[in-house]
């Protein structure tokens, strides 16, 4: 993989925004089939430029408007905000207070830094294949609940470009949810609670809610390889002391002894399970309950969500297909069918795909010198020649499902508003950029 040099970023971005960024799919997404008038026009975008210059409240009339501005500004980072009551770029002309965020996708941000107390391989912004499994489990657990428990249909998972993943839930009803319901959903999905001053962060009650039971079932598939082999959470005294802090003191001595005798985390975990189950039989109704083993698994593996990102309707989140300015990696959609195979280290960097494009275009120029192809046609196909293509495909698959739901919506509306819809749409298409 091509190494990425941040000093080249300005040049690379020019090429990326001119020839590779999947504008038409991107617009198709945020326009949501034109079901609601001015939905795209009232959407906030914000750009981060060189030297952390941050421009909020950008908004665009249509796809070509967006393209032009992006090619002009070449933003280091693009964030997507809410759909407002007015055009965000005119927010200053509206009376204070009248300019209100009205709708947005429900978003989740899962960040590896929040797992620092249970990762032994890296810390803060670093990630490695040993800890990435945390993200895999997070995606599986959260996605299952969003789909089966809440009945959300359109979920787009995106690699953030560095150390985490984002999820965009795009169902029409979800985009209208109040911030109270949004925080409620995050609470439902949160189990690990407490800051620096709390050691034991997961407490299960006697009744195990189906959401927790199903989440544990997912973790079980990964736990042995991830926690006991790769993370080796019971490797030495220092590491197992952290786990002993999560179990009742009455069994500390017994566990210390058996841990000393064992050779690896796998054996020690077996001991722990045995001793824990014994202690459960002895102390009925003890606060630690019958679920000690699960509590440890959950504390070490269960997803940690940042509630503040999900709660606020006006909260900005990094856009899919934006570039991470530090790593150069593209924020690409993740294929849920292959989430176990997703490897953040094979996600293309901007330098890599630009190089790919260069190589191909020099070839093609020689071959197709005579063929006159318009620049536009060229551009719409360019990304297909690079390693970005499979990720755009994932995105398109997501869009197709979205389209199906929107068709239903449109049909519903069409009974009464057929004429309105077509008139609006025509005028939009006809508008010069």
């Amino acid at each position, binding site marked *: 993989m091509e190494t990425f040099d941040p000093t080249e970023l300005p040049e690379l971005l020019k090429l990326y925004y001119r020839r590779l960024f999947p504008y038409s799919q991107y617009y198709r997404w945020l326009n949501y089939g034109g079901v609601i008038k001015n939905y795209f026009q009232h959407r906030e975008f914000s750009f981060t430029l060189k030297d952390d210059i941050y421009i909020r409240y950008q908004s665009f009339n249509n796809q070509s408007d967006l393209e032009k501005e992006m090619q002009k500004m070449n933003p280091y980072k693009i964030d997507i905000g809410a759909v407002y009551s007015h055009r965000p770029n005119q927010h200053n002309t509206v009376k*204070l207070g009248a300019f209100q965020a009205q709708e947005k996708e429900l978003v989740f941000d899962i960040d590896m830094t929040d797992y620092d107390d249970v990762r032994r391989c890296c810390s803060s912004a670093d990630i490695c294949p040993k800890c990435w499994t945390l993200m895999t489990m997070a995606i599986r657990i959260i996605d299952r609940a969003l789909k089966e428990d809440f009945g959300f249909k359109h979920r787009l998972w995106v690699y953030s470009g560095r150390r985490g993943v984002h999820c965009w839930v795009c169902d029409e009803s979800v985009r209208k949810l109040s911030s109270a319901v949004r925080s409620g959903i995050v609470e439902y999905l949160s189990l690990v609670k407490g800051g620096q001053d709390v050691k034991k962060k997961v407490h299960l009650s006697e009744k195990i809610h189906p959401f927790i039971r199903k989440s544990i079932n997912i973790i079980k598939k990964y736990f042995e390889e991830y926690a006991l082999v790769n993370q080796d959470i019971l490797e030495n005294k220092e590491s197992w002391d952290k786990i002993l802090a999560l179990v009742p003191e009455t069994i500390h001595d017994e566990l210390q002894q058996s841990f000393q005798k064992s050779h690896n985390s796998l054996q020690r975990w077996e001991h722990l399970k045995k001793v824990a189950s014994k202690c459960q039989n002895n102390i009925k109704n003890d606060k630690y309950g019958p679920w000690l083993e699960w509590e440890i698994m959950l504390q070490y593996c269960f997803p940690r969500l940042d509630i503040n990102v999900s709660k606020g309707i006006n909260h900005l989140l990094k856009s899919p297909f934006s570039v991470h300015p530090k790593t150069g990696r593209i924020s690409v959609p993740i294929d849920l069918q292959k989430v176990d195979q997703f490897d953040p280290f094979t996600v293309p960097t901007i330098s890599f795909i630009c190089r790919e494009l260069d190589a191909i275009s020099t070839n093609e120029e020689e071959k197709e010198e005579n063929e006159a192809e318009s620049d536009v046609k060229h551009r719409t196909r360019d990304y297909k020649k690079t390693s970005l293509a499979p990720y755009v495909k994932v995105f398109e698959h997501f869009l197709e499902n979205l389209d199906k739901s929107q068709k239903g919506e449109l049909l519903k509306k069409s009974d009464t508003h057929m004429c309105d819809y077509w008139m609006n749409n025509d005028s939009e298409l006809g508008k010069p950029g």
Partner: protein
Amino acid sequence: MEFSGRKWKTLRLAGDQRNASYPHCLQFYLQPPCENISLIEFENLAIDRVKLLKSVENLGVSYMKGTEQYQSKLESELRKLKFSYRENLEDEYEPRRRDHISHFILRLAYCQSEELRRWFIQQEMDLLRFRFSILPKDKIQDFLKDSQLQFEAISDEEKTLRDQEIIASSPSLSGLKLGFESIYKIPFADALDLFRGRKVYLEDGFAYVPLKDIVAIILNEFRAKLSKALAVGVQWHDLGSLQPLPPRFKRFSYLSLLSCWDYRCTPPHPGLLWYPGSLQSLVTLDFPVPGGINSEDCETAKVVACSFLWELRPRKLTARSLPAVQSDERLQPLLNHLSHSYTGQDYSTQGNVGKISLDQIDSLSTKSFPPCMRQLHKALRENHHLRHGGRMQYGLFLKGIGLTLEQALQFWKQEFIKGKMDPDKFDKGYSYNIRHSFGKEGKRTDYTPFSCLKIILSNPPSQGDYHGCPFRHSDPELLKQKLQSYKISPGGISQILDLVKGTHYQVACQKYFEMIHNVDDCGFSLNHPNQFFCESQRILNGGKDIKKEPIQPETPQPKPSVQKTKDASSALASLNSSLEMDMEGLEDYFSEDS
């Protein structure tokens, strides 16, 4: 929503009719009242309601909600203040009417800020929960119907399919079989309070709610309605000040109104809920209804009228946009005071700005900071960084004790730079937030420091966070170590830990205060970190208060005369003074109480 004519035409009803207007001991407050009441009654109702809500709050802190003690104390409180509470009592018209009107008066007072709305909604919800809990089973369906809430139970077949899941999800259900318990299938968003704590089974977007838990759905609906009504008032203010006053608005002077205060609207959109006792001085006022006229807007327009009346803080008004100003002067101080009264004061800064120098902070943090702030200060000094939640909680506290914007910028910058942060990066990334919290950016809201309630209830700390309440958000073991490091005696520590165990976090903090200041009884009830600081300074500076006293609401009236007269003919002359008088009574009430 339907408007039956009777509600609007009739004033006081008699006999059966009276009972028909309030069929239940609890209400959803769908319709604003529309009868004449005197200013005196207005005040009394308002004060009684605040007293009631204050008791609801205090009981909720002192007892587990729903326990026998809590229920019986709350019932006796309701009886004392003559509000309705039980369904089967005879002639409940008056208590129910009081309940109805006083609720709407407090909407006026508590719609103005996020924090006030939150407090008001919380107490009203607890009250409704209590009343619902003592509602006889056979009346529940009636009440739901009258409140336009109807749910349908799922079939036995559907029930058997999910019975294990539903039992495992609902803490209120015990046993292995569902049996005859009815289960309702409700869109998940309406079951917010149930699903967010995972207290209900969710499947494909629906919550499966047992009858026992249906109160949560009702409360959710109540909250949604109430917060919408309160928010509309505020939004409408913004809208109103945008537009020039429509020609139908007539200005009038309150001086001509004597002790009654009058708006009346002409059909088709009735504009105001109160119109006054004496009909000789009515003033006609058409209310513009935002967004056109339909029945629902009519309702909001009436609520809007509340905020309209109440929105008279001088800085926001132009005489042109608010015809109600003058008449408001009679109500504004009362309403303003009512809303200020719920926790005493908000500890915003005016008055003590600039009385602290930056090098004092280290020593103050050990002497006069509450543990939550002490811990944040320590974490900041050690890590040279705090995450957002910590910066908000600590930053606003510092602002509250008197740091100026310039000092705050300097303070945070110095510390962050020590953590190897690029000064430029600080200026770009963080100074905006600090300026924002001082009301210099964005919406220009001057943020007030967080109260204990807010710290304890909202935004709990997660990995890497140091904010929150140490009594609420620490493991007992770690709390113990922390208190030891603060040199609290072992006896004291166990007292504190007992309080924490009983979830009396604020009382625990108060105990801590008494111990570090060596006083037996601190003589106040703690509900704000900045209060902790002020009281501590008061003690340390030998009873001499160097900090600003609680801010009084601006009252344009002259100092009150102490005598209160109810003579109608002199009502005008004594109006202001009687108001002030009552406010003094209120002040007594709250100072003894909080």
